[in-house]
């Protein structure tokens, strides 16, 4: 079982590496959206610092949504997803590996970009560390929960907008806790509680989402 799982992981990573330009697009989108905000609300550094964490988080959610559609689409179109389903490897495990590979290739680059964006929006050092920690704990949650909706909309041709419609309301608690953590950090207050809640949500979704994603894929494959 673990041999086939590593094979899937290596295959997904190799595929992502060979489609580098496609991986770049959500990152470009992430930077562009964030650089629109200073233009839209004015370059005042205090205001930027106040809205910064929220802006970065909203942009991260939106750009992760952009890349998420690719998660199962190619495998679904060329039929390899069906083969994986028929194989003896448990589908929830496969799905978990695929989500991990996707997170590694399309979300981690966003995290690596975050220091630059923190500079753009004039975040203090404490705020930046809190932001990075919430992103580290929160983005796997985005991928796991998002993959459920990706699985459900897989067989639809135009799933993109629908995906956003289904997922954005579900991501609201994460957004609230993450920005609350950064705000606490900006006031030099402890923010372990918010991090703990995000961690708890991540663990719950880690335990339940793979099964929901597997079921969603079976529904799409009919």
């Amino acid at each position, binding site marked *: 079982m673990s041999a086939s799982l590593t094979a899937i992981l290596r295959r997904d990573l190799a595929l992502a590496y060979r489609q580098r330009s496609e991986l770049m697009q959500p990152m470009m989108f992430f930077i562009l959206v964030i650089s629109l905000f200073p233009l839209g609300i004015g370059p005042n550094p205090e205001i930027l610092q106040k809205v910064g964490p929220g802006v970065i988080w909203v942009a991260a959610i939106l750009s992760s949504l952009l890349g998420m559609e690719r998660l199962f689409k190619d495998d679904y179109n060329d039929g390899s997803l069906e083969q994986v389903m028929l194989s003896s490897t448990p589908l929830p495990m496969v799905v978990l590996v695929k989500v991990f590979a996707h997170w590694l290739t399309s979300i981690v680059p966003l995290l690596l970009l975050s220091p630059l964006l923190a500079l753009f929006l004039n975040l203090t050092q404490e705020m930046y560390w809190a932001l990075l920690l919430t992103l580290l704990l929160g983005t796997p949650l985005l991928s796991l*929960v998002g993959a*459920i*909706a990706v699985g*459900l*909309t897989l*067989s*639809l041709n135009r799933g993109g907008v*629908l995906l956003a*419609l*289904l997922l*954005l*309301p*579900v991501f*609201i*608690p994460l957004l*609230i*806790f993450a920005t*609350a953590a950064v705000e606490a950090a900006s006031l030099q207050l402890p923010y372990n509680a918010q991090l703990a809640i995000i961690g708890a*949500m991540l663990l719950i979704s880690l335990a*339940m989402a793979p099964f*929901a994603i597997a*079921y*969603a894929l079976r*529904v*799409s494959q*009919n």
Partner: protein
Amino acid sequence: MWKWLHPYAKTQNAYQLCERLLPWFVTSALISFVIGIVWGLAFAPADYQQGDSFRIIYIHVPSAILSMGAYSAMAIAAFVGLVWQVRTAFMAMVALAPIGAVVTFIALFTGAAWGKPMWGTWWVWDARLTSELILLFLYLGVISLYASFEDKHQAGKAAGVMAIVGVVNLPIIHFSVEWWNTLHQGASITKFDKPSVAPDMLWPLLISILGLALVMAAIFIRRLQNEIVRRELNRPWVQELVSAAKEK
């Protein structure tokens, strides 16, 4: 109980049960809704602080409570459908979703209309308002996911998964926005303590809640029948039904 419930998994039996239940629900809904609303709007005493404008409570509170009730009913139907593979349960879920969405909208609308004279603003980003708004989005998500599939059986399963994801998320949303920002008053009738509403205001309120619940149930029964007929159009019993209706 299973022996008793099981026959209604068949659409024909469910349809006939609906047909038998509908008149009871319609009459009781009309009676209780009219009593509750007329009593509340015309005869209940005016509030000493808010005057007559508090009377919108007789629409606002029932719709707010039942918007969540309808969502849980929808999620339970989805769960039954997914676990026991009951097709009728998916039809029930689909029949419920638009009713719930409309009631959620009514709760938001009356809340805004009440907020304007009381808080001086149509909308604030308060916990309850926000979670009600998110509830509306969740309903719309389920409805639009269902609508975008050609194959309605697949659509039912997909929308069912989404409804359950929503229901897992609802308490998290509720508490997250609660800690985030609160202006709305706390619960006054659902707390375990003695209710903090005067009895001659409380009674019409309870009757309006019951009335709206029955109205929604009656609409639901009719919608479920429509859904069954639409989905089973090629079955002989539906064909008979249609030709019988044509002769009339």
